[in-house]
């Protein structure tokens, strides 16, 4: 057996190889279980014992060479082949079936999670409720203007002698006393109540159904400073870390004191100027967020909570409004028409 002949033969075969797959075939024919190297090794038993040692060494050296050369050839060929792979990855795929969540859903999830982090639990209360929970316990007696036909949506359901007429809730605040009652009038209360609200108003900036998120916090020693702290935390989480918040005096029956909350405009960053021109969104650098205040003692009392021991704050903001402020979704009438051209924007 002359290894050098085999070697030459191998080299010429290797030279002829032009593809990675033929290189693999060649590798198999030499290094495989029934390949030449194994055949040579098996043939050693027929050799004279004194020749076996050298022959063994020669075969091993040959094996190492074959292994090395085949690998080099394969690597080179693979590399060459890979260089030839080319696809325009920017071509769009055939089908991206992409559904959408309603912009209200997206905001609800975000808001819920922000308040969860500071220990507020999301609750759900009826959309159809008695006047008792919608007004009476919120310090709005029967003569209050909000209870007029022009402000509240009444239903034809039975009237309860104690709880009054059935209404579609004009705000999420009907959850306030319901939450106090659920907890057996025992604070602490940390609630976020998100729901649909209804008011007889239908124009470019109002829809007869809208969404509110209501915060309610009742505990010992709750102060205006705490309300400011919570609002500051919320607006920085939701609108961005540079957002500032301010309170202005206002009036609501179920809070005392009552405030209107403004935040620095999300478009002009509170400067009232965009490229040297007056900001069209805010005009003054501030945008109105909604109403808030310290829970009126009559409301605590209605919920069985002693206002001389406990105090609290509450707010109710519109989700359509915060979406408008954050994302610029301005025509809220599109929200509830089911128009696929609008829904597909999200």
């Amino acid at each position, binding site marked *: 057996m002359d290894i050098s002949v085999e070697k030459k033969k191998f080299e010429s075969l290797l030279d002829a190889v032009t593809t990675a797959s033929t290189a693999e075939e060649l590798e198999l024919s030499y290094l495989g279980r029934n390949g030449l190297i194994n055949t040579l090794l098996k043939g050693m038993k027929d050799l004279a014992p004194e020749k076996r040692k050298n022959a063994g060494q020669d075969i091993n050296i040959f094996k190492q060479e074959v292994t090395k050369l085949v690998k080099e050839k394969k690597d080179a060929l693979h590399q060459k082949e890979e260089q030839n792979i080319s696809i325009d990855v920017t071509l769009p795929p055939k089908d991206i079936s992409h559904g*959408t969540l309603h912009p209200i859903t997206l905001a609800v999830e975000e808001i819920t999670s922000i308040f969860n982090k500071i220990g507020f639990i999301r609750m759900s209360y009826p959309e159809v409720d008695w006047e008792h929970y919608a007004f009476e316990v919120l310090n709005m007696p029967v003569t209050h203007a909000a209870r007029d036909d022009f402000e509240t949506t009444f239903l034809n359901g039975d009237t309860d002698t104690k709880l009054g007429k059935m209404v579609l809730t004009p705000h999420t605040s009907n959850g306030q006393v319901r939450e106090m009652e659920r907890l057996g009038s025992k604070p602490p209360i940390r609630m976020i109540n998100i729901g649909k609200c209804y008011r007889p108003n239908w124009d470019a900036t109002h829809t007869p159904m809208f969404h509110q998120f209501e915060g309610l916090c009742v505990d010992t020693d709750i102060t205006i400073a705490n309300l400011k702290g919570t609002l500051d935390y919320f607006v920085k989480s939701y609108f961005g870390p540079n957002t500032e918040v301010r309170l202005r005096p206002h009036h609501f029956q179920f809070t005392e004191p009552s405030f209107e909350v403004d935040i620095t405009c999300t478009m002009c960053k509170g400067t009232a100027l965009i490229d040297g021109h007056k900001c069209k969104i805010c005009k003054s650098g501030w945008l109105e967020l909604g109403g808030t205040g310290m829970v009126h003692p009559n409301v605590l009392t209605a919920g069985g909570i002693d206002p001389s021991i406990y105090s609290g704050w509450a707010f109710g903001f519109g989700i359509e409004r915060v979406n408008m402020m954050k994302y610029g979704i301005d025509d809220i009438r599109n929200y509830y028409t089911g128009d696929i051209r609008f829904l597909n924007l999200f």
Partner: protein
Amino acid sequence: MNIKITHSWLLDYLDTDATPVEMQKYLSLCGPSVERIEEIGGETVYDIEITSNRIDTASVVGIAREAAAILPLFKKKARLKKKTLEVPVFQGDSIEIKITDPDGICRRVLGVVMEIDGVKSSPEYISKRLLATDTRSLNNIVDVTNYVMTEIGHPTHVFDYDRIATHALIIRHAKKGEEIVTLDEKIFHLDETDVIIDDGTGKVIDLPGIMGTANSVVTDKTKRILFFIESNDPVSIRRTSMRYGIRTMASTINEKNPDSELAYTALLRGIELFMEVANAKILSPIIDIYPKKQQTLLIQTSKSFIDKKVGVGIPLETITSILTNLDFKVEVKGEGELTITVPTHRVSDVMIPEDIVEEVARVYGYFAIPTILQKPAYVSQPNETELLFHYQYAVKSYLKHRGYSEVMNYSATSLELLKSFHIEKNEHLHITNSISEDIKYLRQSLIPSLVKNLKQNDGFVSEMHLFEIAKTYLPKKGLLPEEQFMVTIAVNTSIEELKTVLFGLFKELNIQATSYATSDSYYLLPNVQGVVKSDSVEFGSFGQVKPAFCRGLGLDKPVYVAELYFERLMKAARSMPSYKAFSQYAHITQDITIKKTRIYTDIEKAVYEASKLVTLVSVKDQYKDTITLRFVFTDSSRNITEEEVKKELEKIQKVLL
């Protein structure tokens, strides 16, 4: 409501060095919100929002008082210039005038008769100020009433004395259907709850507090006037004014309970102005029917109470000076115990210690209060509520990822839509004062709305996949309706697509459920509908909407929907499937084709009952009335043989014959 006042007018009552821009900024932060400043006819005009509790600020004097309390905290000079008004002395015989309120309807009625030197145009400063504050300038007499209202904050009225037939005014409730013609020549038929003034002959000569009537107002020929102010019941004013849509500035103020003490100030200021613009001479004593004088109010509170509610210590001197500047009287005892007298113009708003907190804190400045999150507290969320929100989002999220779009419809629908679905309206709760017929009947199923959505979008997109999760409202005798969340899915493509997403949903929620053919759902074609059930729970139905309903909406293509009870899904859902270790041993797959003689659910059930070694049954193919089934056999404890499988297949074939 908003009011407009001019800067120059404000300076009649306020001595200040604050500029209009500073005024806007500081007042808005601590008091009434100045929404904008305009320049009108050479006057700087403030447009100010007045909240319903602060009608005392709806005037030049009211804003001056606020400014005098607020501006000093911003280091601005501000002093209220109080005007002393002369009470005219009347001597001699009174002209004939009789004002009565037999039923005691009004809290106060004031009147005085005057002779004037003619109806002409107002002095320039009056007409200019009125125009700048959005009030028409008519003549010297009418202008005084409007001028006094804006300056003092109480509406006033003037009659032509000689047009009041018997020189008597009787305040009474209207008779049902009684007719009036307002000064803008509109005819109204009144209700028994409306308050009117009768001239003693049964004729209505005024809708007091709201608008005058054409038959008694001042004309060009007027020589003698009755200057008249009444303090009426605010609720009655609001209801009458809203009922007929007569929204005047007078009614807007009167419905917010203005101070009846202020009515007297308005009277005196009016007399002063009539003398100035019309050389008025007084012909009668001042008539003042005031059965129950408006009282001040005492509130007991303390510095520590205020500090505790605000969350920061406010110096006692600051507290007392803020309140004093706002016309409160403050008496301090011991360690900050406060006895506070509320002035008459604030008693309808400031009644409890918390109201005092508001007065002090707002002028102190909400911006000066620190920003501190409250101490943490743990409140446990009821498990059902947690599941409700968790799974709502899980379901929405799943459907979105399957290519479905979420819609939100109004909770109420139109009668027309119900009719398209041949539904009786009587069973539905409905809105009694709906502003639109489109949203009147509370939904009991989301299917009609979703079919309507498909119709509305017809033409925009050819293939539609929609869903909605919302409440339905089922009436309950004597109780609130049952509010039940439904999840409803609608497609206009194929039942196959609907089933794919529907069964995928059950898999996503790890609910073992099976579908059965039914014909129970009202909305669906009897032979193309099924229900999805687990052992004990029925989750809802799916199928093809009856084409007759779709045609009713002008929709010709088939619509497939599924409507499920959300709370049932939520209770059955698991975050992990029930765990069963996979078999380490061989799996053998076999197909057979049989004639389909029953629904698939029954086939599947029969297969599992017939063979214990079947772990999976699926449909490989379907052709005409045959169906090719694929079975996977395995045993969790050993390797099974081909012969065993053959025997199992025979068993299966036998039961499926």
